[in-house]
């Protein structure tokens, strides 16, 4: 579906954004009910980045994801049933309950792993990109990371590698403005993070991360460059984390006034309105889409709860070969 702008694809783009929203919206309730334990991170408000980026990729292109990664997996075509089971620690989860929210992986869709440590995905994505070139497979690798991770040394090491080796790599910075309480404008030297690409000799592109088609276009262009052998691109998608860093975050570091204009730019109603206005979708179809998504999530919940717990003895399996 790379670079396609057909109405069908746009409807699918909207559906996946809605699915991410519905999935992550459930987290607080699931936590309260004791169905998921421990912290998890919602990407509500950032759906356009995940879906826009993955809509520009081929099915077998690689992605690496973050601690806030449910959306990336769904955007790449992940199965919400198995994701939900994984969050609940059940046998039918993607990692048979051993990965949890922050370590979902599905190689069959090119999803090489979410990562519980910030900056954990850079090296993996670079290696996959190098492998794709060595194997002449025609794949690219896209590394999702945040404005916090761009200050980790692993970013700089990999940006340099990708630059000298002209790797087919897309470094996609989801600039949601916050590394927990750390504000991007106070933590990133040199101001706009997109300028960092210049130091490593490849293009840096800024894109409106609340506009799913803009993200898709920017990543599609980066993908063309990567496959042409012209090397990596840094894409910085400006977006906003609508909820706290994790479910218990009091968010004392930001105000309602600051959040308001971002909330008004919610990418999902915006894209829905756009499709309605352009005639690509009718109200009835949009409503049906909402219902379809709600059904998928309800089914995922049922699937996950029906899935057995792993056996205790399985804990020793797979520590080594």
């Amino acid at each position, binding site marked *: 579906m790379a670079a396609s702008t057909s109405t069908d694809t746009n409807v699918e783009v909207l559906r996946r954004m809605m699915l991410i929203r519905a999935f992550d919206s459930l987290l607080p309730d699931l936590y309260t009910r004791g169905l*998921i*334990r*421990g*912290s998890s991170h919602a990407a509500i408000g950032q759906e356009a980045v995940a879906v826009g980026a993955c809509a520009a990729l081929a099915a077998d292109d690689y992605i690496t994801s973050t601690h806030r990664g449910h959306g990336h997996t769904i955007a790449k075509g992940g199965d919400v049933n198995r994701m939900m089971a994984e969050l*609940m*620690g059940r046998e039918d989860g993607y990692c048979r*309950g*051993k*990965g*949890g*929210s*922050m*370590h979902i992986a599905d190689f069959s869709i090119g999803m090489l792993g979410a990562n*519980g*440590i*910030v*900056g954990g995905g850079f090296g993996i994505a670079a290696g996959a990109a190098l492998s794709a070139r060595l194997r002449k497979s025609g794949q690219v690798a896209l590394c999702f990371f945040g404005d*916090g*991770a761009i*200050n*980790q*040394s*692993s970013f700089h090491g990999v940006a340099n590698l990708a630059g000298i080796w002209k790797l087919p790599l897309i470094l996609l910075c989801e600039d949601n403005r916050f*590394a*927990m*309480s*750390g504000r991007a404008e*106070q*933590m*990133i030297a040199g101001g706009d993070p997109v300028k960092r690409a210049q130091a490593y000799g490849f293009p840096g592109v800024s894109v409106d991360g609340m506009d799913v088609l803009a993200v898709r276009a920017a990543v599609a262009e980066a993908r063309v460059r990567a496959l042409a052998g012209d090397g990596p691109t840094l894409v910085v998608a400006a977006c906003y984390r609508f909820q706290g860093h994790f479910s218990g975050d009091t968010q*004392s*570091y930001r105000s309602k006034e600051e959040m308001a204009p971002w909330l008004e730019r919610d990418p999902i109603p915006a894209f829905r309105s756009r499709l309605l206005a352009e005639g690509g979708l009718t109200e009835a179809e949009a409503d049906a889409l909402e219902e379809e998504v709600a059904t998928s999530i309800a089914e995922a919940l049922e699937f996950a709860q029906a899935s057995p*717990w*792993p056996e*205790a003895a399985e*804990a*020793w399996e797979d*520590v080594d070969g």
Partner: protein
Amino acid sequence: MAMPERNVVEAINNALTEEMERDPRVMLLGLDVGRLGGVFRTTSGLIEKYGASRVVDTPLAEASIIGASLGLAVSGMVPVAEIQFLGFTAQAFHQIGPQLGKYRHRSRGRYHAQVTIRAPFGGGIRSPEFHSDAVEAQFVQSPGIKVVMPSNPYDAKGMLLEAIRDPDPVLFCEPDRLYRLYRMEVPDGDYTVPFGKAVVAREGKDVTLVAWSAAVELCQRAAAKLAEEDIEASIVDLRTLVPLDVETLVNAVAATGRCVIVHEAPLSAGFGAEVAATLAEEAFYDLDAPIARVASWDIPFPPASMEHWYLPSVDRVVEAAKRTAAA
């Protein structure tokens, strides 16, 4: 006037507040330590009191936080760095063991690095791998780093003050499961708890439990249960792994002739192995039973839904203690 009661978070906050007041060179740095007051609120209120130049919100960059702490220390400041979870020290490992730990030795004693690294750690709060990993033994293998593991609010304050004043680097591991579990008397004002002094936290004649940090609290619960079955366990709280108080350890184990070591790290090559080896060397002829270890399993830290099963439990400690007492 009654002595104030504090939990671990409050004790740490109190220690930092008093030490920043006492010594203008003391400063804090780390992710979220300032405006947010720390992810667990241990540094709450400090930026308001001492300003953003002494309570520094850093970018998310663990290696840089520790590297910069070393630079601060060798140029006149006394940094107290926070790494949000001990498992995140993996991102900074080179800066801790190979750099920070070696400054004094490498310079033949001309220079030293007065750096404290505070790091919450441990399981039981339903946080996942990286967040919960008990990797304290990795730093025991890095000579030059003191490894400090308080188990209660009183020790947390006294040992943090000791750490900040220590001329050499100290890794101060905070038991996050105990952060708000209970309060105890923690005085206002200055006091320190010296390093290398273990304490017998409970007297008992039948078996000696050896633990540190949150595992001490676990042993207390296990000992209470054992007492119901007329087995009296003593508990040694090692308090610091480096330096290790061999004398207190050996005397307490020799007194019962029976020893169960309890820790949250995976079994193999955990610090319990060092304790067992030390006892084999120093207390062999006083032992009446094989030394037992209760630890986490040799697998990666599991998701929250399974951690109760992965971590040492009261039942596992009781079972090991009964087996050892009867041997």
